[in-house]
């Protein structure tokens, strides 16, 4: 814009400038016009870009950052952590470290900053919190006492290198601890990455379970949804519309209501058990909720529309003429369905399957209400760390792993679909 202004001024005062402008090659002029157009279009989508930045990119970046954030120790004891970063970690730190730690402890004692640092260290080693509180009460050192003496007098654990190593390892503002913990790994005393003790390891199993359950639900949704979508796509509009209503009505009902309804139906004195007993099929009520059966039933029910709708929209676009042509040319009905119809429906199957699988991985409320501790998926633990223990680093790390898994899945899917499109073009 400013350049344009300058140009007009120039042409107004200097006739020779005008000649110069006329000499600008057509290509450059065209490019300039093109650029203006692009800017205008860019301005049109600018609100969308800003919206996406604020609601999508920024929260996800913030979340990913939180999974490696380690601000507590640095915030409470900036000078000491600075000194500890240069410490070799093999023998007790120097007097300067002791002195600065004593000074900073005395200053921050009793403040929320100090409490969060103590809480953070307690996460590394239960008991550290009391150690910090107890030591802080003895700070600053009395006259005639060195900081080192004061620390060891307050608690002899300060004379042990291991105690200082916990501090040293957390003296930097970032840590891989949470990410490691969410795949059952931790730092040992020497700072090497090792496996978590067997009775505390949990997340690898939980992640495996999350993927396994999502796969099972996706397969069931596909088996149940495909015939229905096919029926809807091939029936006359009148019948298809009725079927569509049956799909959409539960889709519009709140998830919580549907989960509660399943709870009523499936509990040991519920309708299903009563009916089965009345018919005489069973004598004792079956255990249908608070185990995997209940979770699978409810999740398949809730996610079915997400499978059916994409498949339906793809199937609607497939002309019946192809299968008819195949059959008229002598191909048996099933083979013509498999060879001619199914490949065309595949993008719908893929989209539906991916949608259901990804939604499944983040499922929380259904397993929480209908499952036992053995059916809880990764998001349960995200909620646990967010709400119960306020360990947001751990919650962010688990979310980051789910997020990465989703991205990988999406990339695999788009690669597969992309290949298919290429293959279709080649044909």
């Amino acid at each position: 814009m400013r350049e344009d202004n300058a140009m007009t001024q120039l042409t107004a005062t200097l006739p020779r400038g005008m000649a110069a402008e006329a000499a600008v090659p057509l290509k450059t002029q065209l490019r300039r016009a093109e650029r203006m157009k692009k800017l205008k279009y860019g301005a049109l989508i600018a609100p969308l870009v800003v919206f996406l930045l604020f609601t999508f990119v920024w929260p996800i970046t913030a979340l990913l950052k939180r999974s490696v954030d380690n601000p507590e120790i640095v915030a409470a004891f900036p000078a000491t952590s600075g000194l500890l970063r240069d410490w070799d970690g093999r023998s007790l730190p120097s007097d300067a470290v002791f002195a600065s730690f004593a000074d900073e402890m005395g200053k921050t004692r009793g403040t929320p900053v100090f409490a969060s640092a103590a809480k953070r260290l307690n996460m590394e080693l239960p008991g550290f919190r009391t150690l910090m509180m107890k030591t802080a009460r003895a700070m600053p050192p009395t006259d005639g006492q060195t900081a080192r003496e004061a620390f060891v007098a307050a608690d002899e654990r300060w004379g042990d290198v291991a105690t200082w190593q916990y501090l040293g390892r957390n003296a930097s503002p970032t840590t891989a601890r949470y990410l490691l913990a969410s795949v059952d790994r931790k730092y040992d005393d020497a700072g090497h990455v090792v496996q978590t003790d067997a009775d505390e390891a949990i997340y690898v199993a939980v992640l495996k379970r999350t993927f396994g359950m999502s796969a099972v639900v996706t397969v069931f949704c596909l088996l149940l949804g495909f015939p229905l979508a096919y029926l809807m796509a091939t029936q006359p509009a009148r019948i298809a519309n009725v079927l569509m209503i049956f799909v959409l009505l539960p889709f519009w009902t709140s998830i919580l209501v549907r989960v509660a309804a399943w709870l009523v139906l499936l509990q040991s004195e519920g309708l299903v058990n009563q009916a089965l007993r009345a018919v005489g099929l069973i004598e004792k009520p079956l255990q249908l909720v608070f185990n995997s059966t209940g979770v699978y039933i409810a999740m398949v029910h809730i996610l079915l529309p997400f499978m059916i709708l994409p498949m339906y929209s793809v199937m609607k676009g497939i002309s019946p003429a192809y299968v008819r042509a195949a059959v008229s040319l002598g191909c048996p009905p099933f083979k013509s369905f498999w060879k001619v119809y199914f490949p065309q429906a595949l993008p719908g199957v893929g989209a539906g399957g991916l949608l259901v699988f990804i939604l499944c991985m983040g499922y929380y409320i259904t397993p929480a209400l209908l499952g036992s501790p053995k059916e809880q998926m990764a998001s349960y633990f995200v909620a646990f760390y967010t709400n119960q223990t306020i360990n947001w680093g751990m919650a962010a790390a688990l979310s980051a792993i789910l997020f990465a898994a989703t991205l990988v899945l999406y990339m695999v899917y788009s690669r597969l679909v992309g290949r298919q499109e290429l293959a279709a073009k080649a044909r």
Partner: protein
Amino acid sequence: MSHTLSKARPIAAALAAMSLLAGTASADVTVISFGGTNQKAQAKAFYEPYAKAAGSKVVPGEYNGEQAKIKAMVEAKNVSWDVVEVESPELARGCEEGLYEKLDYGKIGPKADFVPAAVTECGIGIFVWSTILAYNSDTLKTAPTSWIDFWDLKKFPGKRGMRKGAKFTLEFALVADGVKPEEVYKTLGTKAGVERAFKKLDQIKSSIQWWEAGAQPPQLLAAGDVVMTTAYNGRIATAQKEGKTNLKIVWTNNIYDFDLWGIPVGTTKKDEAYKFIAFASKPENQAVFAGEIPYGPTNLKGTALVDKKIVPELPTAPQNMKGAFASNTQFWVEHGEDLEQRFNAWAAK
């Protein structure tokens, strides 16, 4: 000029309306509790009489003790909860971390009026509650009498309810394994003690039905889903009052604790919050509360005012205190996260 005026008028009107709304809202105090029958009792004993006495409303709300909500509000400096009911370890931790106001007891009442353990830096005890053993006398022919019976699957077959979490679950396991109540926390503080508790839990793991909200145990018992369960004494007592007389309480080795009032840092209605807490801490109001749901008053003068018929149902009754032990707040502040993590890993296997 007239153009801008005509535009400005509705804005001015809207602003006036908003300030009016804000004006009425500022006098109301938002009180968050754990819901259910506990909240109903609070409404009768505290909210309704307070509204009459103070001339402003109590806006009740409920939560399940998630401190994350309070932390988020305090950090965002947008605190809409004025008074919150909190369990002791959470309050102690929140106090250190600057989530709760340090209380000015001058605005509440003399400290000497209360049970000493109910008076803390950031919270004043509302009531004493107990986690007890409850059973359904219709489904159990012989009555269980202790935590040892709770673990006896042969003599008492059937499912057992327990609160999903390490707190209380580990304590009861150790008691059932023969640890003396006064040594439970000492034992649980060692690695071997934790092993011992989980090993004991393994014995009945397949028969445990976990519960999370205090309203669940009486339902599970009444529906026959479990034959016995850990439960809060008040919830069972109110269920009995509602006609479910087949639900019984075993007081042997119960664990008692306080629920306290806390004020989140940054509330704009601190004065109202104090006014409400002072009102709810008065002996006569605490006595009404104990009459509604049998949780023990923290105001020493309140205990004397409680209906004599209800006294035997209170956790603070001498015969119920025998063999009972207090939940160790300091222990749970220290080991809570570690043991809950361990518990999660154990429960998910």
